[in-house]
Structure formats: structure tokens, C-alpha cells
């Protein structure tokens, strides 16, 4: 009822111009560290949003459970306006770290962060912390997904018998393009005769079109396929049905087709999150950009144990990982 009276009291809102928004408080003493994360798709999308969710669970476990690290999630915030409201709301509730896990949230973070100078924000995937704009409480993180893409591509090039490889992607930019470019380069380097067909279906959600794109790849002779973003679950089904091999990325997609998934590039943000938590403890609230790479183990290749990968291909993949880590192979765009 108090709420109702509150509504009534604000009818003349235009006249009342009161104080600015309060800042959030830092963590102190035995209070758990509190993180809020906003993701564009579902936390179980087997892709980008799932990667941050699982990383947070991992950090939580490492730190000693919910008593030490408490986190909340607002998923499906594909509407950037809503995401902005969520980020602002969490910041005003005093969360120690508010993560905007979507490159499209850059604009709203840039706008909100200055209003909450005591709260730390993190934004991915990007390298821009807005320090050049005078904002010091935003961390940035990104995945060098072309690295694992390259490794997956090398394996794909080695495994294809038809010399045709199919790739399904959402739109031709961002993390998806990075991964696909790496994958194509890897496949070509391993197998110059291989033809890599890429299909951008223009959507992150059209499972049916992703599936049909995979069907088209199969018809065009592909016996190995890969794809990125959450709508590829449709393509994985086609791979399974046609006994074509599949390479996943972002999160483990093995559960969908244990017979044909060869390997997944996993995004493990836990190192980045832990580092950010440490920095916040030391009083640094932003201004630094992080990358997950094969070298720092933020990216790693998870092999499907149910699939019997020939030893020489496994060795080839391991050697490629080593070469990328040491810099012997450069895959940066």
C-alpha cells in the first residue's frame, strides 16, 4: 500500500527535482562480494551467455560458495534499453561489480558508469574501457576467438575426407566473424585443397534457417561443419543426422550430438572475473582491458571423449595450440 501512496505522490513529478542517484558501496569485511550480470540471451543458450554464467559458477565455487560470492543474473536482455535499466538498477542496489555481457551494451555502460563512481562495471566483448572518455570504473574483456577457431579449423582440415567444410554463422561481424575467419584460415592452412563454405543466416535466433543452411552444406558435400551463436543448435542436429563432424565454440555443445562433436572452443571467463575481483579489492574499479586467449587458458579446446579423435590429429591440434601460444603462428586479424 505504501507503494500506492508513493505513486500518488509523484503525479507532480515534473516539479520535483531532487538529488542525484546514490553511489554503490564497496565490499567490506565478511560481506560476500556481489556481482550482477546482464546477458542478451538465455543463460543456457549453449553459447555466449552460457559462457559467462558457467564462469561465474566456477568462480563462486573457487571462492567458497554463495557466502563469499553472491551473483544474480538478468538474462534475455536483448532490448538494450531494458539492459540499461537493469544495469542502472543493479548499480544503485550496491552491487560491487555489474557486468554487461554483450557488445551492444557499450553505449549504456558509458552513460551509466559515471553516475556510480564507487561501483565497478565490466563490459564484453570489447577492448574499450572508456578511459579516454574520462571514465575510470569500467573494465573491458574480449575473447580472441580466432585462436580456438584456427585450432578447430586445423582439425577440420585434417579430418575432412570430401574436402568440403561448411560453416554457419549469424551476422558477419564481431565475435562470430573473428571465430569464423580464424576457422577458415586454420582449415586452409592445414588443407589447402579444402573448400570452406560459409553461410551467414542474418539472425541469432532462426534455428530453422540455421538447420537448412547446414542441410545445404551437406548437399554441397560437406562432411565437417562448424558454427557460432545460439541458433546453431539447429545445425548440430543436421550434423548428427548426416554423420558430419561438428566443431563448437563459446560453450560445450557436445551434449547435443555426442557422436559427431569433435571439440569445442570453451570461453572461460573465470580468470578475468577473479582478476577483476582482486583489482576491486585493491581499489581499482576499472580502466583495464582483458583478453581470454589460448595462452592464458581463458580459451581452451575441450575434446569430446566420446569421439575417437585420431592421435595424429590430436597431436596436430596440440602443436597448433602451442604454436599460437608461443607466437609461432599468428592468427590475429
Amino acid at each position, binding site marked *: 500500500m505504501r*507503494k*500506492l501512496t*508513493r*505513486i500518488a505522490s*509523484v503525479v507532480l*513529478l*515534473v516539479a*520535483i*527535482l*531532487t*538529488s*542525484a*542517484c546514490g553511489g554503490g558501496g564497496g565490499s567490506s569485511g565478511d560481506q560476500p562480494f556481489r556481482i550482477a550480470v546482464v546477458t*542478451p540471451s538465455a543463460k543456457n543458450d549453449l553459447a555466449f551467455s552460457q559462457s559467462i554464467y558457467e564462469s561465474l559458477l566456477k568462480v563462486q565455487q573457487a571462492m567458497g560458495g554463495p557466502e563469499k560470492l553472491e551473483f*544474480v*543474473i*538478468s*538474462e*534475455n*536482455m*536483448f*532490448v*538494450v*534499453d*531494458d539492459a540499461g*535499466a*537493469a544495469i*542502472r*538498477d*543493479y548499480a544503485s542496489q550496491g552491487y560491487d561489480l555489474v557486468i554487461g555481457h*554483450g*557488445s*551492444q551494451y*557499450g*553505449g549504456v555502460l558509458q552513460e551509466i558508469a559515471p553516475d556510480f563512481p564507487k561501483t565497478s562495471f565490466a563490459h564484453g*566483448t*570489447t*577492448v*574499450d574501457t572508456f578511459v579516454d572518455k574520462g571514465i575510470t570504473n569500467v573494465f573491458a574483456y*574480449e*575473447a*580472441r576467438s*580466432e585462436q580456438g577457431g584456427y585450432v578447430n579449423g586445423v582439425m577440420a582440415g585434417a579430418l575432412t575426407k570430401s574436402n568440403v567444410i561448411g560453416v554457419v554463422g*549469424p*551476422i*558477419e*561481424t*564481431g*565475435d562470430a*566473424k*573473428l571465430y569464423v575467419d580464424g576457422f577458415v584460415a586454420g582449415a586452409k592452412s592445414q588443407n589447402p585443397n579444402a573448400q570452406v563454405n560459409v553461410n551467414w543466416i*542474418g*539472425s*541469432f*535466433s532462426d534455428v530453422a534457417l540455421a538447420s537448412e543452411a547446414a542441410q545445404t552444406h551437406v548437399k554441397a558435400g560437406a562432411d565437417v561443419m562448424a558454427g557460432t551463436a545460439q541458433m546453431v543448435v539447429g545445425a548440430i542436429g543436421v550434423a548428427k543426422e548426416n554423420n558430419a563432424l561438428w566443431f563448437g565454440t563459446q560453450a560445450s555443445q557436445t551434449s547435443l550430438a555426442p557422436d559427431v562433436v569433435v571439440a569445442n572452443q570453451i570461453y572461460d571467463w573465470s580468470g578475468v572475473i577473479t582478476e577483476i575481483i582482486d583489482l576491486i579489492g585493491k581499489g581499482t574499479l576499472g580502466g583495464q582491458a582483458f583478453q581470454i586467449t589460448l595462452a592464458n587458458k581463458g580459451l581452451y579446446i575441450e575434446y569430446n571423449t566420446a569421439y575417437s579423435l585420431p592421435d595424429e590429429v590430436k597431436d596436430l591440434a596440440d602443436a597448433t595450440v602451442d604454436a599460437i601460444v608461443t607466437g609461432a603462428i599468428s592468427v*590475429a*586479424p
Partner: protein
Amino acid sequence: MKQRLIEFWNSPVIDALLPVLATLAALLVGALMLLALGANPLVAYGALLDGAFGSLNSIADTLVRATPLLFVGVGICIAFRGGVTNIGGEGQLVVGALCATMVGLTFPDGPALVVVPLALLAGFLGGAVWGGIPGLLKAHFNVNEILSTVMMNQIAVQGMNFLLIGPLIDPVQLERASRIPQTARISAAFDLPRLAPTRLHLGTFLAIVMAVLVYILLWRTTLGYRIRAVGLNREAARYAGINVPRHIALSLALSGAMAGLAGAVQIFGVNFRMFTDGSATGFTGSAGFHGIVAALFGQLHPLGTIPASFFFGGLLVGANRLQRAVQVPAALIVTLNGLVVVFVVGTELWRQQRARRRVVERPSEHDEPSLTAIPPTAASLEGKA
């Protein structure tokens, strides 16, 4: 006293409250879902109210969220009054936003008083073209506008993706590994003035002004009269010498123009740059669809659409707060919105019956026959209703 009560009960005030009552009924069903999910409905709905209207910032957020709904909704009013259905708001909004952004980025150093109106005009025209194409196709080739507007939405989205990945991308992003598909920020000098310390911007007032202007257009000008005449009965309008195809195309173009203006205002008042997440929704927040809901909640009257938009905007903002407060799956929010829409339109029967009773009891010179049927082409046949 009793007489007064009866009079009050029969008055249009209660009509206006019907949607609120229906919303409460829908929220009651939602409460059962919340209980099933293990959340306390009282806490949840407290958060909803608080999020929508509980503080100055909440109210500002509600108004900001409602602004594109109001623009689109006012456009929907024009279309429906002209006897056509526009479900292409999403695409028109995107095109309007793109046009406005291009103007803003082309003249970064121009005077705001010139560039901003020019950009808004570009948005208006962009939306008009995107709505006008289905209009012309309908008028001259008998291509159904529901079909063409659905298709035009997708065409706009793919065009947007193309532009934001390539020609319009922020040059800074070209140097980055993860190229974010967005334009550069428009010059801060162009930002629509805000009512500090909230996010409320001038665009909200502009939307209200447009609603009033469209009301005047539809009911106080010859053009508006013709559009409504075509909407009420195309045959009769033709006999009256009205160029029917032209007015069909015009009502869809004007409808699209309002959505385009919504897009332009979103750029200059809220986002300050155009971006894509592959679909239109990330930018539009489904305003192209929610605007239809707002217009119909507002009885397809531009002025009625004003409170209806604020109401629906509040629901959208508050429901998201609800999700955060009790941490239920976000899917519940969409379900709740759907229930509210269904319950509110479900009150139509009572509204009609009450309107009829009023007419019988006290014939009113202001009664709008076209208010009772959708689209208004129906009204001609059921004028007796």
C-alpha cells in the same frame, strides 16, 4: 446519492478504468505463476510498481520507454483510421533511425538547432518511405499491407545489418578485433535536452505534441476527414470524389513516418548511435508491436494513446524490475505482458455494451461510430452497433 453512483458507474470514467481492472485480473493469474515459481507475488508486484512509478527515475524510465510506443501508436491510429493495418513499425523505426543517424554523422559540427530538426525530418521521411512503399503497393497493385509490412520489416533489418557492418560502422571499430556493429556516437551537442537528473528527454514531449497534432489532422482538417472517410467506407468515399488509392498510400506513409520519427528520437534522446544485435528488437525494444497494443488500448485515438503508452511503458519497465527483484526467469515477463494484452482487449464487449447503453440513455453528439470496430472499414456495415 444512489443516483450519483449509478451515473458514475455509467460514466466514461469507468470505461477508462476498465483496462486497469483487466490488468489487475491478468496480474492475478500472474500471481499464481509467481507462486508456482516460488516467488512472493506481493514482493514481486511491489517491485513492479516501484520500478514503474516508485521514484522520479522510475517515472522517467517509464516515460522514456513509452515514448517510441506513443509515436508508433499515433501512427497506428492514422493507419487504422485510414482502413489499413500497419505491422511494419519495427522496420519503419529502424529506417527512420538510420536516416536520422546519417544526418547527425554527416554534419558533426553543424549547429544543433539546424542539424537536430533536420535529422528528425530525415527520420520522419525515412519512415514515410518505408511505410509508403506498402501503401503504394496496396493502392496500385492490391498487395495486402499485412504481407508487405511483415516482409519490409525483415528487409529493413538486413539492410541495417549491412550498413552497420560496413559503410556506417564506427571507424574506431574497424581497428578492433571484435568489430562491434555500431555507428560512431553522434556529436554530444545534438543530444536532446534532458530533464536532469533523470533520463527523461525532450522527445517525450515531442511525442505528446505529435499526438495532439495528429488528432487535429484527423478530426480538424480536410485531409484527415478524407483519410477517415476512406477508412470508413471506400466505396462511399469514391462516390464522394475522394482519391481512394492516394489516401490509402498516404495513411500508411504517415503511419510509417511516425514510426520513423520514433527511431530518430531514440537515436538523439536515448542511444546516441545506431547499433544492431542482428535483429531489430535490440534497438526498437519491439516498439513496432507494442505501439499497436498502446494504440488499441487508447481506443485508436491519438489522445487516448498518450495515457495508454505510459501505462504499457510502465508495465514493460516495471516487469523487468520484478524479474530482478525476485529473480524469476525473464520469460515470465513476456508471459505476463501477453496476459495483460489479452485481458485488456477482452474487455471490449463490456466497453461496447456500456457505450451503447449510454447512447440509448443519452444520445451524444460526440459519439464516434468508428470507435467500435476494427479496422474501421467494418464500421460502415455496423454503424447501427
